[in-house]
Structure formats: C-alpha cells, structure tokens
C-alpha cells in the first residue's frame, strides 16, 4: 500500500454572495481511498488546525445517489469514465500531483459554499413533469402490460441517470438537455409514461428554459463526462418528442 503526497488546490467560497478563491493544501492519502475519503482526511486536518473544513456534498458513496459533485482537474467526477467522484480512487493519481478541485459551474447551479452547489433547478424540472400519474392503493403488477425488450432496455438505460448534474457542469453552455432528455426518454418509452408524454415534455422544456440553462450545441461533453453513460440519442428523442407535442398535441 503506497501513500501519496498530494497538493489539493480547492475552491473556497464562504457563501454565494462572496468572491471565492483557490487555496492549496498538502494532504497525505492512501492509494485505496476514494476521492471523498481523501477530502475527509483533508477536513480532519483542517479541523485540527481550527480552520473551516471544505464543504462538499456526499451521501451513498456507492455511485448511485448522484449527490457527490465537484470538478476534478477540469472534469466533472474526475478523469475516469463512467465513475462518480465517490467511486474514484486515489490510485488513479500520481504521488506529488497537484489536483485542482472546483464546484460544478453553471448559472442555474449557484455555489452555496465551497464545492456545494444548489441543484434545486433539477428538482423543479422533475416536479414540472418528470413523473407518471397513478392511483394510490394496491401496487399494479409490473408485468401486466407487456413491453418490448428493446424499448424496455432503452428506457432502462435512460433511467440510469442519477441526476447529479455532471452534464450541466461539463457543458460549455450550461445546458441541462442530457438530464431532461434522459427523464423524457425513460418515461416516454414506457406505456405507463407515454400517455402523458406531450404534456410532460412541454412542461419540462419550459421549466428547463425558465431555470436559465443554456441551449444544446451538440458538443458531446455531457455524454463524455456522464458517470452513467447517458447517450446523446436521448437528446434527439427529446427534440422529436417536443416537436411532436407542439405540432400534433392539443
């Protein structure tokens, strides 16, 4: 087991209205630690020195909740493909390396403190239409409506989106199209979701615009950085679905 001596250059910002700046700290990390565990070590060190620890978000630490964020050396969730920050291990970094850690950047994701950004704009997009309407009571048998295998798989691939916001963070336009399209595709491909598709897509697109997310230029940075490998095909599906809703729906 080897120990890495690292320089962590991290964004410090007390609150949204304050100006932030980078601070550099020396951290000794074990190569088997996750990136978040390395930050825990840094924070324990800061607390011992009676300094303010670095604020960052985390929850499940097993790559499925979408809470961890941060941009590591210019890439959301760090350099590893299909990996969240919590699943990124320190063995992918070199001894003596300087690692630059920044918060997700987008106007619709304002910084709350240090590496913590407010992603409530995503919640409001979901609230506007990212659901299906069902009656309460006994749960319906999941297999009562047969679903073609291809569709089920495509829908499931889109449903893998954990809503972390790495797509917005990676996008030079601060666009939320990959996230919104994943939700629209996931629900729209299933018979349970198809019935409300027109209403859903229009409401979600309107909310996305209202939140001030940028427009999609098909650059593909979102697809490259997505920890759940959500594909650009979903954005094409969203655009088709939106046009269909506007031109053929009520």
């Amino acid at each position, binding site marked *: 087991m080897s120990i890495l001596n690292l320089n962590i250059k991290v964004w410090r910002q007390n609150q949204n209205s304050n100006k932030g700046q980078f601070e550099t700290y020396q951290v000794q990390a074990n190569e088997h630690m996750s990136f978040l565990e390395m930050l825990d070590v840094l924070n324990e060190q800061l607390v011992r020195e009676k300094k303010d620890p670095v604020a960052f978000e985390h929850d499940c630490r097993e790559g499925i909740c979408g809470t961890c964020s941060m941009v590591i050396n*210019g890439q959301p969730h760090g350099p590893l493909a299909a990996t969240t920050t919590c699943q990124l291990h320190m063995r992918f970094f070199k001894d003596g390396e300087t690692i630059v850690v920044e918060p997700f*950047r987008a*106007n619709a994701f304002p910084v709350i403190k240090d590496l913590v950004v407010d992603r409530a704009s995503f919640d409001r997009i979901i609230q506007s239409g990212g659901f299906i309407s069902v009656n309460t009571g006994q749960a319906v048998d999941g297999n009562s409506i047969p679903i073609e295998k291809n569709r089920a798989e495509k829908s499931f691939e889109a449903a893998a989106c954990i809503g972390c916001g790495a797509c917005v963070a990676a996008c*030079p336009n*601060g666009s939320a199209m990959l996230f919104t399209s994943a939700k629209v595709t996931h629900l729209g491909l299933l018979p349970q979701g198809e019935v409300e598709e027109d209403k859903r897509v229009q409401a979600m697109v309107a909310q996305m615009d209202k939140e001030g997310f940028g427009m999609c230029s*098909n650059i*593909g940075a979102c697809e490259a950085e997505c920890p759940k490998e959500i594909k650009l095909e979903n954005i094409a599906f969203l655009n*088709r679905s939106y046009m269909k809703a506007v031109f053929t729906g009520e």
Partner: protein
Amino acid sequence: MSWLVQFFSSGIGKKIIMSLTGLFLILFLVVHLIGNLQLLKDDGGKAFNLYTEFMVTNPLIKFVSYGLYFFILLHAVLGLLIARFNSNSKGTKYAVQRSPETTWASKNMALLGILILAFLLLHMGDFWFKMKFTDQLDMVTYDDQTVKNLYGRVAVAYQEWWIVAAYLIGLLALSFHLWHGFQSAFQTLGLNHKKYTPAIKGLGKLYAVVVPLAFAIIPVYYYFFMK
C-alpha cells in the same frame, strides 16, 4: 399562433431554426459551387457571365435569393444571440479547461460564424453589391446579349494576394463550421439513429472538406495561373 411563437422562443425551437437555416445554407453552397466552377472554363468568362445574368434576372431565383438573404441574417443573428445566452448560462469558467472527446469546432461555432460573416461582407461587397447596385462593372456582349462582366471583376480581384488569403481563411473557417454543423443539424432535428447517423456523420465530414476545398481552387487557380 401563440403556440408557434412559444415554440420558436423555446431553447429547442431556437436550435431548430439554426438547424433548418443551416441545412438550407448547406444546400445553397452546392448550387453556388456548381455555378462558380464555370469560372474554371477556358472561355473568357462567357459561360459564367451568362449564368450570373440568369441568376439576377430569373424571377424564381430572385424569389429564392430573398429567402437566402433572410436565412443568412437569421442564422447569423440568432446564432450570435444563442452564443451570448449560452456563455451567460455557463457563468464562471473553469480554472482547468479539459474536455476530451469533443471537437474544437463544436465549441467555437460562434467564433467561426463571425469569421464567415466577415468573409461574406468582403465577398458580397466586392461582387454581389457591385453587380446588383452599381454600374462599376463593364458591359460585355455575347452574340446578341449584353451583360455585366462580373467575370472581369473576379479575375482582377483574385490577382490581389490579400483577397486570395482572406478567401482561404474564410473557407477554412467554413470548413470547421461545417465539420460540426452538418451532423449537428440532424441531431437537433431529432434525427439520430444507429441505422443512418454514422452515414450522416461521414457525409458531413466529407462535405466539410470537399466543398470548401473546391471553392478554394477558384481564387488559387486565378492567382497562380491566370496572370
């Protein structure tokens, strides 16, 4: 009609305008190239001059040309507005810029667009404006038809090294713009499928190289071989 206004003011709607106008301009480039290749004919400019006379007098072409001017302006103005909006939406830029798996062209469409627009001002100011709105061009008579000698102006312009250089820069910018824009237009229209998307992407790259290169042959040929 408010639904239509709402559609075109949405983010997706605006991008669909960019996509449709872009595809129209892509089609225009083919027509423009085929017409202009007549400049390489060794006939003292007869075929080209008769063709330009047809292009400025035919009522159907005139009608389409007004659409063309409108779409160029719409594509340029809306494109710049979108670029400004997107840049504001991003807000603070990262200290470390790293974005593997993306093309330079895709991230610089507005810059490339501005270069193309600057080139268009030079290009249209020199030929289109002089042809349509001034009497600066000499007249030339073929059989019983007297037409403006645009060929003469072109042949003179392409003797200037800086005009040829500006054309090459403009066409290089166009090539990069098309490299991303061609396939991006289809994606925006929702046309992305494993059956045909690889073909669209391949065709887009081919188009982005071949068409600007074919345009570039004309000024280069005149500069070096038509002294």
